[in-house]
């Protein structure tokens, strides 16, 4: 996101929704720089939770 021009980029948190043992939902935020605004490139990143799958309705690997 920073690379394409966003600033104030954050991985805010993980959502607990897992589509496999290897993938989890996450929430990201970024802003497009406004005219005259100074870039704020401090990137914050949450850590994934070790939460189990909440539902196993599909075959492994499904999203």
């Amino acid at each position, binding site marked *: 996101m920073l690379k*394409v*021009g*966003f600033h104030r980029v954050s991985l805010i948190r993980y959502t607990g929704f897992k589509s496999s043992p290897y993938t989890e939902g996450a929430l990201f935020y970024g802003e497009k720089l406004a005219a005259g605004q100074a870039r704020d490139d401090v990137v914050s990143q949450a850590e994934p939770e070790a939460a189990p799958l909440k539902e196993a309705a599909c075959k492994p690997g499904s999203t």
Partner: protein
Amino acid sequence: MSPEMTESEILKVRQGIKEKYDRVAAAGSGGCFQYPTGKDGMDLQGYPPELLRDFPPEVLAAFCGVGNPFSLGPLAPGDAVLDIGCGAGVDSLVAAHLVGAGGTVVGLDVTPGMVEKARANQARVGLAHVTFQVGDAEALPFPDNDFDAVISNGVFNLTLNKEKALKEAHRVLKPGGRLRLADMVLVAALPPDLSDKVENWFQ
């Protein structure tokens, strides 16, 4: 785009994703995802109950998002919002509710069947200031600086060229505009027998 993917693999991925979401459009989200979908999923992700009360159950049943992009900050009344990969339109309709009649929402999805479903859901909810159209996240059919906010829920992981899709989201945002994105990410290394399987994209 993954540099090691061949042209035939890219075509296979695009076709596989399209076929999966054609199935979701026809049959609904139930059983197609490994996490809670429908109203249960929305409740778990903290969508405001007072807002969901205004939506018919069959609309809420179509939700298959991986998170709640609205939890990342408010939409202002009158905002212009783009929902990239709107699917059955649930988040677009939530956004339309939040921005009010003075705002506008566009839901965009690459799968015509999902756009049809979104339009049907719009008719059920009765919000006039949201439109749905077919389009690709990597080539957004909008001018520069057109939206106050871009939202997306579980879609960028399905784009082959994520940098291009993010560039497009940045391009169509107005200066000061916000991207609020929920998506699937890798949280552990894939084992070697899974890491290079094209089928991972659309199973």
